[in-house]
């Protein structure tokens, strides 16, 4: 499924890049943009979960696994071989013996162990802790009950044994930059934050806060012949209109497009071919608090799904830059069921369901939202009249994005609108609805359903991939019927790519996150 979508989405790129089949050219500068804020949060990638920061981190750092966009799954990166034993709970990693940090020192098992122990520091709230917790004994370190993760054992300098708490694919847990491997000796120094050292294909040169990060080729990178480019410049460009001018002026090689630019680029014959798009693993939804009486009734939640003309909002307001959600798991999830159909727009049915639930004359609720243009206030404003038509009144409570995240985790809401990562691991995405998952983790609707729990538990124990997928699809279908949320859309990430830039991957986890060692610029690039 993922491959099909990636191929369809990549048509524009393929047409534009007719020289894609050429031998990659060595040299030149890749000029990427970081569009999600007016600066990078930190040069210590362990401390920041913002997509903005991982753009440069993909060039500077490496983790145990890496995301393979073509395959749609994580693959070993710093490990040459992974041996699974102990009924899937023990993973033995044979590490690369040719990976050098940018200070010239070879990576060893000690660096991996040091990095994971650091991430579990219970006084720092490192966001990668959510992944490392899957290792036995990691939670004890986080709680301050142990100094080292008991489930991580160094066998020799290039072999590690990792005991997991659950039978999961560790690739999904250790592929993002949040779990990057740091050099144990250097990273403990204060200077590391100013001059980070990693294992990635490019080494750090310069950071101009609020403007750019410059990186240059690391000649001892372990993949022969890579990276192709000499330099990578990641410019901070938060304003879509400014990116648009810079892209048209050939000053940047990539530009994330918002809804307005998406329409304009599609209509412009000179720019249409530069568009790359992919269904990202993010689901946008309105969460309903079951502690608020009307939302405790499934019929009310279903009525809301019937009452909203979701297609109209996606087409007119989001300008088609989203895919209609048919349940929780997104299009690019390996467990996505293409037979699923979304709730149709049916206000009459919505009214009937409300009447059946005892709310024939409707009710009022408070809807907490941020200002986000794709899944915030503009969407809420469009939905309110639709709900009003069936008798439901919504009062808007507008908060900042940082506050919304706190509201959602604390359960201090009647309803909220949000965008949540729902992949790439479908089991992890659905586990957010398991009754054992705390609200503060990702069970934001405090969902509890014994039947759902059982299906998820069975899926977690299933060794057969087909059987596991079938169970996950069943759980996803159950969620559709239970409607703990209004299923709005899956994000369609759109990026314009200059014709001289090749090797850009349609990364469903986040389109701006590129394995830059595979990206190259041809001689027509103005940056040479």
């Amino acid at each position, binding site marked *: 499924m993922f491959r099909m979508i990636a191929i369809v989405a990549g048509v524009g790129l393929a047409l534009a890049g007719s020289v894609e089949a050429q031998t990659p050219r060595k040299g030149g500068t890749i000029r990427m943009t970081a569009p999600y804020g007016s600066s990078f949060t930190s040069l210590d990638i362990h401390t920041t979960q913002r997509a903005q920061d991982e753009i440069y981190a993909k060039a500077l750092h490496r983790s145990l696994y890496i995301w393979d966009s073509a395959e749609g799954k994580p693959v070993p990166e710093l490990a040459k071989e992974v041996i699974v034993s102990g009924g899937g709970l023990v993973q033995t990693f044979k590490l690369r013996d040719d990976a050098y940090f940018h200070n010239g020192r070879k990576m060893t098992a000690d660096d991996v162990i040091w990095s994971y122990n650091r991430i579990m520091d219970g006084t720092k709230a*490192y966001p990668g802790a959510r992944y490392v917790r899957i290792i036995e004994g990691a939670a004890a370190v986080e709680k301050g009950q142990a100094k080292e993760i008991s489930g991580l054992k160094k066998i020799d300098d290039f072999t590690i044994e990792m005991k997991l708490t659950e039978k999961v694919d560790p690739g999904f847990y250790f592929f993002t930059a949040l779990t990057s491997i740091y050099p144990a000796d250097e990273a403990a120094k204060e200077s590391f934050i100013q001059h980070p050292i990693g294992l990635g294909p490019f080494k750090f040169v310069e950071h101009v806060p609020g403007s*750019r990060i410059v990186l240059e080729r690391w000649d001892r990178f372990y993949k022969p012949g890579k990276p192709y480019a000499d330099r990578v410049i990641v410019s901070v460009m938060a304003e879509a209109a400014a990116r648009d*001018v810079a892209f048209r002026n050939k*000053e940047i090689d990539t530009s994330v497009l918002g809804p307005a630019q998406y329409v304009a680029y599609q209509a412009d014959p000179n720019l249409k071919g530069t568009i790359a798009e992919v269904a990202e693993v993010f689901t946008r939804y309105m969460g309903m608090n079951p502690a608020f009486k009307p939302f405790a009734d499934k019929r009310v939640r279903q009525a809301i799904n019937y009452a909203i003309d979701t297609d109209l909002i996606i087409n007119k307001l989001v300008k088609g830059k989203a895919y209609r959600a048919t349940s929780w798991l997104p299009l690019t999830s390996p467990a996505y069921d293409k037979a699923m159909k979304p709730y149709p727009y049916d206000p009459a049915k919505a009214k009937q369901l409300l009447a059946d639930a005892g709310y024939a004359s409707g009710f009022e609720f408070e809807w907490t939202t941020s200002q986000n243009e794709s899944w915030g206030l503009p969407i809420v404003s469009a939905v309110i009249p639709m709900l009003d038509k069936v008798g439901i009144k919504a009062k808007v409570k507008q908060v*900042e994005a940082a506050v919304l995240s706190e509201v959602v985790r604390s359960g201090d809401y009647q309803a909220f609108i949000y965008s949540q990562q729902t992949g790439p691991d479908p089991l992890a995405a659905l586990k957010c609805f398991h009754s054992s998952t705390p609200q503060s983790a990702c069970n934001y609707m405090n969902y509890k359903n014994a039947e759902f729990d059982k299906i998820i538990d069975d899926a977690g124990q299933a060794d057969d991939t087909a059987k596991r997928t079938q169970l996950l699809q069943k759980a996803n279908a159950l969620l559709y019927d239970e409607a703990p949320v209004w299923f709005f859309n899956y994000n369609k990430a759109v990026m314009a790519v200059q014709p001289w830039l090749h090797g850009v991957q349609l990364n469903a986890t986040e389109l701006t996150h590129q394995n830059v060692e595979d990206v190259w610029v041809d001689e027509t690039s103005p940056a040479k």
Partner: protein
Amino acid sequence: MPMLSFLVRRLLQTIPTVLAVVLLVFVLFSVVPGSIVSSMSDDADPQVELRMKKQLGLDDPVYVRFGAYIAKLATGDFGTSFRTREPVTSMIAKRAWPTLQLIFTAMAFSVLLGVPLGFIAALRPGGLVDSAAMVVAVSGLSIAKFWLGLVLMYLFALKLGWLPSFGYGDGGLKYLLLPAVTLGVSPMALFARTTRAAVLEIMTADFVRTARSKGMSETRVVKWHVMRNALVIILTTVGLQFGGLMGQAVVVEKLFSWPGIGSLLVDSVLQRDIPAVQGSILVVVLAFLAINLLIDVLYGVIDPRIRYA
């Protein structure tokens, strides 16, 4: 001697102002919802959150935290950023020069263009130049910076290819021009209007009439009597505009990816990096006070009738 005592007195007067700002910002960020922990991780363990707050001293009562902050501030320590774990002074130092470059260039552009424009307009009131100058002035005051910046980018970068559309580059003039002009157009318009009004008023003053009746040439009248007196009003406006420019620079910095204090402040607010927010605001306030102190000193230089009493 009077100058020295004036300076000491003015410096002492700034202390309550600075303390009031520090207190206000401190209290404000103690009560606004959202925290550094929630901005760092979507699913931090509540126990971790508590430990982190304890480590950062966020679980202490507000008055204890404020006391500790003031004590540090007295030694020139602005604290350590929650996010980057860098000293806030070092974060600000990296951003201070680009902000100063931007603000001073914008101010130079606005003064060099706005003041002569206002003068010329006032010397021929009601004429073509006056009408044109006032159209420019009103437009300059009305145009949104964001929109103007985009128009300048489109024209000078995309259409003419003379300047880069964004970025800091090597910090040179070609990168600075567009953001500085974008920032400077509004004060330029204000200077033109203020200068025109001041000059028109002074031109009808008794001492100007006296000078003319003594047979002094019009050039000398303008140079020695009108210009000097108008400068006091212009200087006051310049001082006030510095503060305004610091606030408005946020929009321009973000639009042009210019690495100034404004974007540091905005990002720090969004991420609840309280030490960075407090430090950035304090620096902006101190800069504003320093500029205005300098202008007060200049009053006496321009007009000897103003005494440092």
